[in-house]
């Protein structure tokens, strides 16, 4: 996507020439890490992974510490649920990072797994894992990508005209005018782009 490439260059901010791959490699490690972290629901995903590890730890620490496979057979169905839910939570946490496009699905799955863990696995890892999963899933769900240069929308209408028309049409009436850049950055850019257009048609 051209818009994304342009965004990368803005983020790097160092080289005036937009040679696309080279500046990215030259960026300092910290800055790369920061932009990686900010470009996905990092903290929500991290909490989901921690929830999974915690649910893992209670039935399995015997196996993990002692390396005894025999214990797994011994643990039975309760332990199996703990392991299964823990593994799925870790997976959904990682998928919110590496497949951020579908983070809505993975974050809801994480929340549901967290709730299910309460009867299925040691009272949700003695509440801790369940709470981590619910909070982490909700943060990952609430994470919304922003775009710094909303080019296609800027072509369609100017923010000054758009603000009143948007409220008149009922596009999220509680959104303040100061949040206009955000409005353009809603994850569904399509309806936001269509809204003002149809608004203009009505006017």
């Amino acid at each position, binding site marked *: 996507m051209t818009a*994304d490439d342009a*965004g*990368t260059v*803005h*983020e790097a901010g160092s080289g005036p020439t937009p040679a696309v791959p080279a500046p990215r490699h030259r960026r300092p490690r910290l800055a*790369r890490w920061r*932009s990686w972290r900010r*470009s996905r*629901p990092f*903290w929500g995903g991290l909490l989901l992974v921690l929830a999974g590890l*915690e649910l893992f730890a*209670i*039935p*399995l*620490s*015997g*196996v993990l*510490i*002692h*390396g*005894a496979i*025999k214990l797994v057979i011994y*643990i*039975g*169905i*309760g*332990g199996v*649920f*703990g392991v299964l839910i823990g593994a799925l939570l870790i997976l959904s946490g990682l998928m919110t990072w*590496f*497949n*951020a*496009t579908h983070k809505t699905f993975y974050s*809801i799955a994480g*929340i549901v797994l*967290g*709730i299910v863990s*309460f*009867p*299925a*696995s*040691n*009272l949700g*890892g*003695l*509440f*801790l894992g369940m709470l981590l999963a*619910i909070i982490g*899933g*909700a*943060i990952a*769900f*609430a*994470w*919304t*990508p*922003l*775009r*710094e240069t909303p080019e296609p929308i800027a072509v369609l209408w100017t923010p000054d005209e758009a603000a009143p028309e948007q409220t008149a049409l009922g596009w999220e009436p509680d959104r303040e005018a100061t949040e206009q850049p955000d409005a353009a950055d809603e*994850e569904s850019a399509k309806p936001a782009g269509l809204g003002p257009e149809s608004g203009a048609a009505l006017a």
Partner: protein
Amino acid sequence: MSVDKNSSSVRGKVKWRRFALVAVPAVVVAGTMVGLTAEGALASSISVSGQEFTITADQLNGTGFAQFGGALPNSSGGQTPVIVSAMQNATMTNLCQSVTVLGLTIHLTAGGGGGDPVSASNLVVDADSQTAGSAVFNNISIGQDAGTMGGPAGTFGEQASSVTINKLVQKTWYTTAGTFTLPNLSLGFGASC
């Protein structure tokens, strides 16, 4: 979509209204499940291993009781001798269980306050110490080969059709139960049993 794994330039932020949109219903559902469990209407599955934790109960009534010696591998590569107790069904009054997870001691009490006792099915406990005020066994056979009860063959075991233990205190390394019904559940931090 604008967000794929290559577009590391797309930044995002957490919108707290969206957070509340899912967190509030999730907390309500979770709270309902906690409430149902605390009323004893919902059974939960318990399986803990690998760390020592304490279980106390004022009284334990069990049916289908079997007990034999066993060993769990420990972190130093050796074996920790344990007493394996298995019960098909068990009820416990004033159950208290405390466990230390990640340096935090969590203690759980249930079945107190004169209400229904805690009930568990397919309970297996591996304890390295077990004390009791008094114990009553019915139809006990002592010295039965543990191999007939799922333990190591050729070792000592005992079996009883039912058992009543008062003032039970166990230090256990491993507990599992198919279902645990925990009326009057309460969970707290800090104190051990």
